């Protein structure tokens, strides 16, 4: 089972330094598309409810109908100034936008995809260890579950079938980490 997209992005955001140009370009385009869909939906709503036309909207914001048509048709480069003019011209006011932490999306994805058994193990590990010690991916039977915690370093959780545990950072160890299981507390 693959790690969720949200988890992968969150991992890159926290550890990429800097976040790759690819990821930034992808997410920029996503946001552009989302704003464009929002503008388009709002226009269609006002068209239906108030009979607003593209020509009328163009007149209201002192623009050309062809330009308004283009703004409504493709994401392009809608600037904040353009968005503001279009919303005003459509006689609507933007509600406060909200944001969801990527960590929440990652947990949501994990709840949807992780088998019950894996979720129970992940929960028991998180309960057994102080949160600051636990971060990374719990991996067992080919499945991975993100584990939430404050980050000290970036330990990687691993488990082979029948043995569930975490690799936790330990600079005194030759390997740089130690393996912990739910049966004992880590000594970090």
């Amino acid at each position: 089972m693959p790690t969720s997209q949200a988890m992968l992005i969150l991992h890159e955001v926290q550890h990429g330094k800097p976040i790759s140009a690819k990821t930034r370009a992808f997410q920029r385009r996503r946001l552009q598309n989302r704003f464009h869909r929002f503008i388009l939906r709002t226009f269609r709503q006002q068209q239906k409810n108030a009979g607003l036309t593209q020509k009328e909207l163009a007149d209201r914001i002192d623009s050309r109908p062809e330009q308004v048509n283009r703004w409504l048709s493709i994401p392009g480069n809608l600037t904040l100034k353009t968005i503001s003019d279009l919303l005003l011209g459509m006689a609507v006011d933007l509600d406060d936008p909200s944001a969801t932490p990527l960590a929440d999306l990652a947990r949501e994805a994990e709840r949807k995809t992780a088998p019950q058994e894996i979720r129970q193990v992940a929960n028991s590990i998180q309960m057994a260890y102080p949160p600051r010690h636990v971060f990374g991916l719990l991996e067992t039977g080919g499945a991975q579950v993100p584990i939430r915690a404050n980050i000290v370093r970036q330990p990687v959780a691993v488990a082979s079938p029948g043995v569930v545990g975490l690799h936790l950072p330990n600079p005194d160890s030759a390997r740089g980490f130690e393996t912990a299981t739910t049966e004992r507390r880590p000594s970090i």
Partner: protein
Amino acid sequence: MSIIDEIDQDCRAGSLIRFEPTGDPREHQVAESGRRRLFISRGIQSFVESDKYLVQETRADFSDFVMGELIQVALHTDHKDCWLARLERAEEEVWEIRIYDTTPQLRFYGRFAQQDVFVALMGPQEKSRFWHRKLNYENIKKACTAEWNRLFKHQPLSKGDDIDAYLSSNVDPA
């Protein structure tokens, strides 16, 4: 054997790849039943895995398509700006995906296999604003049709001007 069976066969053979919305943190929020299916040729797959111009914009637009987001669609090419347009003549059933940004823009070509199932066979072609670099649409349509016929025994979906027959939801007719 249905067209979907044929596509499955091509996917197993590696000549088509199902595009997955990797990179979208909300990917898990859209169930399979709410998704459109987009299959891409090996050439397009190589492009979306590359570092070339507008790759990430293409991937994000493809992801939005797969995730069932609102898209602008034109059944006739006199609608200048939209994301997906059917080329003239309609009965040839060759569609153009348009990746807008600064010039040159990109274009991909393909056909609908079923409602909400699109097969992109050609691209990217660069679309410049300069007249002398105009795309040769007749050649593009011929090549796209030939590639379709090489892969499939079935004909593409052909539903005239019934846009809902091509895409079941979230379509804004341009």
